[in-house]
């Protein structure tokens, strides 16, 4: 992967000047390449990685395994696309194994998610079955550990 993308993945807020200094290239070059990635749709957005457990949010997340009937011609794409358009669905993946689609669904509470599953998801043509798991606690998200305060145990000066 391009080193520029690695740096953005680690910290998308890093100033263009610092990125340029780390890569040994000019600021204009950094801006040009980022613009190019955005235009090509490689970079699709920038988000903060939150430790939501600290925020006491009125929110639950469910991971839902969905079995569907693939369509002739379109395979899983049309139904996956259709499911992905629900705002409650935060992430959607096609999986190998005992089910087909894995959805990360957010709602205000258990009932909210349950009603999404029974009223919307399960009623869609082609959806054969669903299995819903609620997330209880986040330890690591997007490669970031949620535990804070990693003390530097090294001596402050060493040879």
């Amino acid at each position, binding site marked *: 992967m391009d080193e520029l993308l690695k740096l953005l993945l680690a910290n998308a807020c890093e100033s263009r000047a*610092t990125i340029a200094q780390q890569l040994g290239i000019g600021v204009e070059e950094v801006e040009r390449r980022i613009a190019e990635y955005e235009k090509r749709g490689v970079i699709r957005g920038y988000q903060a990685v939150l430790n939501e457990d600290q925020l006491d949010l009125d929110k639950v997340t469910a991971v839902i395994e969905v079995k569907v009937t693939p369509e002739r011609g379109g395979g899983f794409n049309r139904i996956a696309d259709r499911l992905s358009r629900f705002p409650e669905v935060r992430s959607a993946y096609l999986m190998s194994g005992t089910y087909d689609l894995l959805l990360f669904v957010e709602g205000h509470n258990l009932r909210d998610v349950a009603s999404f599953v029974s009223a919307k998801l399960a009623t869609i043509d082609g959806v054969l079955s669903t299995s819903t798991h609620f997330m209880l606690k986040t330890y690591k998200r997007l490669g970031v550990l949620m535990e804070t305060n990693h003390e530097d145990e090294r001596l*402050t000066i060493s040879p």
Partner: protein
Amino acid sequence: MKTSGSPSLRDRIAAPVRDIPRSGIRDFFDIVSTMQDVISLGIGEPDFDTPWHVRESTVFALERGTTHYTSNLGYLELRKALAGYVGKKYGVNYDAESEVLVTVGVSEALDLALRALINPGDEVLYHEPCYVSYRAVILFAHGVPLAIETRAADGFRLTRAMLEKKVTPRTKVLMLNFPNNPTGATMSRQDLEEIAAFARERDLLVITDEIYAELTYDGPHTSIVSLPGMRARTLFLHGFSKAWAMTGYRLGYACGPAEVIDAMMKIHQYTMLCASSFAQKAALEALARPDSDIETMVAEYRRRRNFLVSAFAGLGLECTRPAGAFYAFPNIGKFGLPAKEFALKLLEQERVAVVPGTAFGACGEGFVRCAYATRLEQIKEAMKRLGRFIGRLG
């Protein structure tokens, strides 16, 4: 304890030990450790934790009860893996049974090597600025240290001309350390070829400390041991501290001709017995997939190196572009302060710790060592503070 008529205890300390000053780094550490909110660019070890799979394998080794002595030379399985690693990396093949010794860090390996090779009065050539222990371990081995000053103008590389000026008929050993602590200097194959030719002509033994071998940023490292005719006269010392971020494991090794390894093993067996057994198991795990761990760290160090060199340039500080290890050695001579005073003032006024160049030899005067084994945000903040500081110095 002192009684009249008898010498003080200090006078009864063995002369080679009594006469050697404590490491300058130690004094500086004592000052820094009394202060709060210091950003330290003075740390000579990786800020990365040991790769998780290595730590996990250590725990497994402990669970399994791998807590006993090992063979003096180290686990044969590990020695085989080490011989394989060195063979693959440098094309130099060692017999795991007789030519590899597992040690407690490169520090022990260096001490063993010198004690195994030096008769009292034998001279040892080494280049400064260098790792803080070199001069001391030569003296502890009753050798005569011959320091060669390397210069910023040469990129802190060692040249044949410098060696020729210092060598005498009593010179027995040449010690090398590239990539270098504290300058970050590296030697190209071509640079090393003239050193190797000199060693062959003068029949010198070479001890090469390659602890930073994996950490190069502008091309792969060449080891002098891989040059023609050098295997038979070279001791290759390496370890897991830097590239694998395993400093606290204290695990190193020496590869060399069987006669020398056997001599080193004799000292090791009587003084150390063996390196830690579970650390040896961890090292095996580290070698099982070295590249992915190291690549990630090297990429990060390279970016920080680039940032730091660019930041120094922005501050008008001259700095040889370091191509290896994780140190930069900028020239602070133009401010007219001795390196130690510069470092102390920077610490007091801006709470940034750097190590005075003089800790690495007298010719380090006018320089400070800045380690970039620290998170980029810290380095950025340190550069801001350094900028403020030298702005006031004018």
